[in-house]
């Protein structure tokens, strides 16, 4: 058990700990700091206290984890195609494996894997675990979790990386719960603490208001889902990957969740999370018809259309366009916010974009706090002028 205590004799009630607590769980009561229930023992206040008045006791356990070796990457596929995030995981995994002096393996499940195996062989991985079965042709939680668990139990990897997609975030917790492994969600940075020989997983929480470093000290494997589009993709290079084929043990009767149908969304709805450019509209557009301006700009730039919650709630545009805390978290190369005030709930979904252009007629709009380029202008004037200029550029290009 961990325990956190305020030593009242030392506490001056200065309040430094209050503002340091990322969870707002400290208050000053009778001139002394008081730690409220819900504390997760992160220790930030301990470092913040100038008087060493807060102490945190953690019990250290000693366990032998040396049976577990190597870094695994789960290769996500959709309709038989390996998803881009897999190649990002492979580059992260390669670094981790090299730092540990261990092997990097990729695990792929599916049906008719021949082409994908040939593709994977072009990358610097040491091993490829392949499991083929018609029951694995589509992603299904039950079957995939069963196969992955049995592989883990047999080969004992030290680290397993999975893409933080709606498939990866469905699979990884199912497996982690089964084997009681530590799982860290949606990581944006990974590194090895060589001294402790453990994986340090860095991830945003509270919609990116804070970052947390998380480790899995006493159990293996260490599992992480990793946010797409954060890591660089691995480059092909000559490799001599060894393919290890494993027979699964599955029967159709165990299929509890049956897929009846797959519905593709209209082609104009580019996947926001994959888009390199996003043009987003908010209530400043004035009326739903004006979304045509946003579409037009997105079109000509080769980007996707996003929206604030206000316009989604008003029914101007379907909710899968929504960016923000209760919508999608995006990280394009360019995000253009048009008529969006930039409420914190919107910001957390887009503030990691590489370049942000904000167009808003109110110079005080909070979106300007995070915009790379701010344009204080009526969007009904600015957007048509910008579109016109881009159109003339594109015609000269041809």
């Amino acid at each position, binding site marked *: 058990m961990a325990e956190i205590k305020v030593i009242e004799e030392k506490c001056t009630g200065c*309040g430094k700990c209050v503002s340091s607590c990322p969870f*707002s769980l400290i208050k000053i009561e009778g001139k002394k700091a008081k730690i409220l*229930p819900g504390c997760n023992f992160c220790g930030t206040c301990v470092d913040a206290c100038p008087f060493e008045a807060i102490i945190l006791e953690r019990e250290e356990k000693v366990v032998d984890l040396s049976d577990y070796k190597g870094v695994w990457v789960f290769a996500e596929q959709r309709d038989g195609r390996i998803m881009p995030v897999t190649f990002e995981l492979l580059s992260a995994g390669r670094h981790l494996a090299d730092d540990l002096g261990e092997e990097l393996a990729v695990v792929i499940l599916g049906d008719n894997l021949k082409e994908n195996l040939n593709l994977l062989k072009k990358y610097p991985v040491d091993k490829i675990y392949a499991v083929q079965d018609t029951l694995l042709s589509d992603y299904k939680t039950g079957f995939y979790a069963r196969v992955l668990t049995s592989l883990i139990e047999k080969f004992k990897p030290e680290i397993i990386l999975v893409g933080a997609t709606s498939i990866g975030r469905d699979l990884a917790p199912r497996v982690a719960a089964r084997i009681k492994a530590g799982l860290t969600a949606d990581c944006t940075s990974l590194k090895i603490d060589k001294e402790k020989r453990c994986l340090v997983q860095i991830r945003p929480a509270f919609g990116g208001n804070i970052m947390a470093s998380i480790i899995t000290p006493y159990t293996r494997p260490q599992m992480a889902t990793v946010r797409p589009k954060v890591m660089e993709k691995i480059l092909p290079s000559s490799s001599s990957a060894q393919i290890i084929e494993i027979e699964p043990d599955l029967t159709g009767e165990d299929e509890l969740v049956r*897929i009846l149908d797959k519905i593709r969304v209209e082609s104009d709805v580019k996947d926001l999370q994959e888009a390199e450019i996003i043009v987003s509209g908010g209530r400043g557009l004035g009326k739903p018809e004006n979304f045509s301006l946003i579409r037009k700009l997105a079109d000509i730039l080769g980007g996707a259309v996003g929206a604030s919650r206000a316009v989604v709630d008003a029914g101007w545009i379907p909710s899968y366009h929504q960016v923000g805390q209760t919508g999608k978290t995006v990280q394009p190369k360019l995000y253009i916010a048009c008529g969006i005030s930039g409420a914190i709930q919107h910001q957390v979904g887009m503030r990691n974009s590489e370049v942000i252009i904000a167009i808003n007629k109110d110079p005080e709009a909070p979106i300007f706090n995070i915009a790379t380029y701010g344009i204080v202008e009526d969007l009904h004037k*600015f957007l048509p002028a910008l579109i016109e200029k881009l159109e003339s550029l594109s015609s000269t290009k041809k």
Partner: protein
Amino acid sequence: MLRIVVCIKQVPDTEELTKVRINPATNTIVREGVKSIINPFDENAIEEALRIKEKKGALVTCISMGPPQAKEALRKALAMGVDRAFLISDPSFAGSDTWATSFVLSQAIRKIGEFDLIITGKQAIDGDTAQVGPELAELLGIPQVTYVRKLEIEDGKMKAERVLEDYFEVVQVKLPALVTVTKEINQPRYPSLKGLLNARKMDIPVLTNEDLNLPEDKIGLDGSPTRVVRVFTPEPPPKGEIIEGDLEEKVQRIIEELKKRNLLRWLK
């Protein structure tokens, strides 16, 4: 009758949280805790349970694991119309990661009784992990359908539409099962005045570890495979620039910047 369990979490209001971060409190400011809300997706979970109840009849039970003040969240769920609510609370549960949280929830659900459907939000906006739903399903030994935007129940089966990044999947599963819901599934109701008055009179039983009797190595910090070792504020983005000039000049500047950064390479 269908028995539905909705899992809700009380989370700090984001607005409050950033206020705390941006104007660090001085010793003159005494905060009465932080303003808390029901995790927004969990309100969708409550709403969906109530809609099923209204259509088919159901006993809707709402549970939350958290400190004593999480009762407020449960009180609101009661006001919205759930039939009963339990708080799962014990000092020994503090510091639980998603594994330990799911374990405690799974044991509490078993203790409360039989169920047909568990509904959770797709993720909590504080931790943003989206792990408790699937982990809970695993620990209860039932199938899961995550990121659901629509569901229908007929003859002990559930048909659900699951949202993936680039398509929707329509799936069917026999109950009991667990679903995690997105905000698209519905628009949560506001509690009615009558609901609010009713909820005030209702008892919210607390299940502690005396009731659940869970081993120390599976709960709280000791039962958690992961540890938060450091929490820090991300680097603020570099201060941007407000582009001055007339309309023409502004357009020109933006085009130049886009060119410079090679962002016009997809230009149609």
